[in-house]
């Protein structure tokens, strides 16, 4: 299974995302922001970083990159897409996911090992978790405060589209402790913490992030 990892100018975590795909048993495929060719990949990861310097709003300029002109319709057609941190911001700016990520309530950049609860194991990126499973993965963001209006929040809660929630502390002021959400179909997932930094106990706090990447591979095998 071939999983594309997109690099924008200012992306930081593309190499770790590619490594996570490889450790999960997939074949990472480098995709470039300036090229609208998705190279026939079976899924795509939008990794973290500061694409286009976070100028204007985080993800606002990346949304219009050539690669996104292909990725947005593909995601709408069911292609599994995981947006991590800056990738989550890009998915919201692209309106593939509802809501927006704004400046942390504390105004401080927060970097910590964060405990989460996985709340929906029905998505393409979370099916290898157990519902209610608690995990610890790194979190590092300055603009990770998830906001949406109450009607939107009620809708995504009702549809079970909150895929992960912060435990212990809410690091950025996100509404209803939301750390990650999915679209209605469950193929597009956005997550503020970083599972790709927690795929090997040697280099991360845990290997708790690996199931995000194995999930999509099993989802693809089942679908084929």
């Amino acid at each position: 299974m071939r999983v594309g990892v997109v690099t924008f100018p200012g992306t930081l975590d593309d190499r770790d995302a590619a490594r996570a795909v490889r450790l999960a048993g997939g074949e990472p495929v480098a995709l470039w922001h300036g090229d609208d060719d998705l190279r026939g990949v079976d899924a795509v990861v939008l990794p973290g970083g500061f694409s286009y310097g976070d100028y204007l709003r985080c993800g606002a300029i990346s949304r219009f990159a050539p690669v996104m002109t292909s990725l947005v319709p593909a995601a709408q057609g069911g292609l599994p897409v995981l947006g991590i941190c800056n990738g989550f911001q890009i998915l919201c700016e692209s309106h593939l996911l509802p809501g927006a990520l704004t400046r942390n309530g504390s105004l401080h950049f927060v970097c910590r090992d964060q405990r989460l609860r996985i709340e929906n194991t029905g998505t393409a990126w979370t099916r290898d978790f157990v519902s209610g499973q608690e995990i610890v993965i790194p979190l590092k963001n300055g603009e990770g405060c998830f906001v949406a209006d109450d009607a939107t929040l009620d809708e995504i809660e009702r549809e079970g589209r909150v895929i992960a929630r912060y435990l212990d502390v809410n690091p950025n002021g996100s509404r209803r402790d939301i750390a990650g959400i999915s679209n209605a179909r469950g193929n597009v997932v956005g997550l503020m913490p970083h599972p790709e930094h927690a795929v090997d106990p040697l280099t991360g706090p845990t290997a708790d992030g690996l199931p995000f990447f194995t999930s999509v591979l099993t989802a693809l095998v089942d679908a084929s």
Partner: protein
Amino acid sequence: MARVIVDVMLKPEILDPQGRAVQGALGRLGLTGVADVRQGKQFIVDVDGTLEGDRLALMERLAGELLSNPVIEDFTMRIEQ
């Protein structure tokens, strides 16, 4: 030459921690009675010729799609020809 001025503000219901920090600083610097501060952005876009027809419509659309995010922000746009 036309000048387009686009003001972007967070919607009233969206928490503005930057505005709140500025509010605190104003108080610490002696300004009493600051009830609220909201921080926004202003874009000044200079374009050649007059802005009308399709180009004006595109400018308006991009003010809503690129310069602001309708999920969290409102914008106003005015033109000085």
